[in-house]
């Protein structure tokens, strides 16, 4: 499968700044692409468009040549958000949060270091790093073909960062899932990715 963003332009509302201007990116299932840019250059916005949360003003998102919006039900492109506490329902226990996603191998839950006891807790009873593991697990459902990781390790300590990234890289490599990793940190992206794109340079070019 190929995920392709073609000539994407986007801005929030009609009188705000143009965030993305004629930006294109192609991602195959074998690739791990890093996306780097300073704050405010539309990294998160681009992920949202690519995962189908926002519609671009111009351009299109194609998955295997078909418009992403044509895929109904479980979206094969899953985004992992920067702030895990915003993307889990505070009133549901973590077991339910995981069950929302697609079928999940026990291997993934264990690989991410999720303790069985955490499943019975509510989001407020877990730390940010613990929550983020759940969000990563939820996004790695059986039918996922592409993962968009939007600064997923910003709030984690270095040991946890390396733990999570090495698991994620191994997992996407084994299952042939395409990965788009967004970060401020060039060394991290160089370590994790097969190639790195700079949104800032592309925006100016």
């Amino acid at each position: 499968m190929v995920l392709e963003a073609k000539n994407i332009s986007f801005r929030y509302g009609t009188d705000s700044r143009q965030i993305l201007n004629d930006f294109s990116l192609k991602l195959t299932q074998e690739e791990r692409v890093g996306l780097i840019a300073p704050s405010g250059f539309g990294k998160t916005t681009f992920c949202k468009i690519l995962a189908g949360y926002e519609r671009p003003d111009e351009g299109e998102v194609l998955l295997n040549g078909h418009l992403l919006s044509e895929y109904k039900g479980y979206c094969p492109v899953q985004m992992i958000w920067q702030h895990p506490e915003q993307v889990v329902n505070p009133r549901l226990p973590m077991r339910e949060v995981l069950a929302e996603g697609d079928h999940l191998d026990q291997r993934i839950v264990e690989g991410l270091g999720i303790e069985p006891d955490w499943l019975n807790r509510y989001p407020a009873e877990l730390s940010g790093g613990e929550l983020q593991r759940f969000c990563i697990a939820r996004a790695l459902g059986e039918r996922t073909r592409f993962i968009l990781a939007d600064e997923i390790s910003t709030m984690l300590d270095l040991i946890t960062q390396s733990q999570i990234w090495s698991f994620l890289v191994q997992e996407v490599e084994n299952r042939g899932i395409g990965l788009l990793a967004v970060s401020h940190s060039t060394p991290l992206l160089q370590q994790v990715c097969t190639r790195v794109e700079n949104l800032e340079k592309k925006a100016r070019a």
Partner: protein
Amino acid sequence: MRRMNGRQRTVLAFGAALLFLALITIAGQVFAKEAMATDFSRKNLAPCAAYPFGTDWMGRDMFVRTLTGLSMSIRIGLLAAGVSALLALFLGIVSATMGRAVDSIVTWSIDLVMGIPHILLLILISYACGKGFKGVVIGVSLTHWTSLARLIRGEVLQLKEAPYIKVAGRLGLSPWQIARKHMVPHLFPQFLVGLILLFPHAILHEASITFLGFGLSPEQPAIGVILSESMQYLAMGKWWLALFPGLLLVLTVVLFDVAGESLRKLLDPGSAHV
């Protein structure tokens, strides 16, 4: 005895308030016959051991009359508040989910109903519906849904934009599943607390329009009727005719408020600190 923690005290307050209200309702039903009974050999008695609330100019026991009146008020309150809350839930959800045109109609009618003084609208509706039990219930139901509807509309609008709801959509959950799993757990406490906090309003408004003569008919032992009749006898020094029924009405309203606030604290602990 060991000191109870805040949650246990709240549960206790909620239970006690509900128990007391249930007792009043049941007692009022049991004594319904006695409340109508006249006995001129005991008229105009001041409060004493046999008649704690005294008797009126027709020798009716004011204690049972007050209980029966309150029981009637509580039942009207339950019915009117229930209908009103369901109306609010329906309109609030419809307003937030059915698009801009429906939303403006609903918000416009909220503003309309809120803009007219409650009591005026209540009297008009009750009078147009032929007064009595039916008139009061319809009147109270049609005037009390606005603030809860606005609250629920706001809540649903906010929920619709919440990132975790959007994520659920991309994970392939249907709108129905999202509503059931993600929206109901947020709306239900708001709805329940709103419902209980509607009771005191409904009861007070029932009593006021009955007092003004646009509600229940004079032969029914209702709090409003008792209070308006006692007006004529207050000047003659029969203070107990208005004092005790009035106090008990205030107590009932306060208890409903206690029940509602305790329930809010239990269901939505975050609001306890506000």
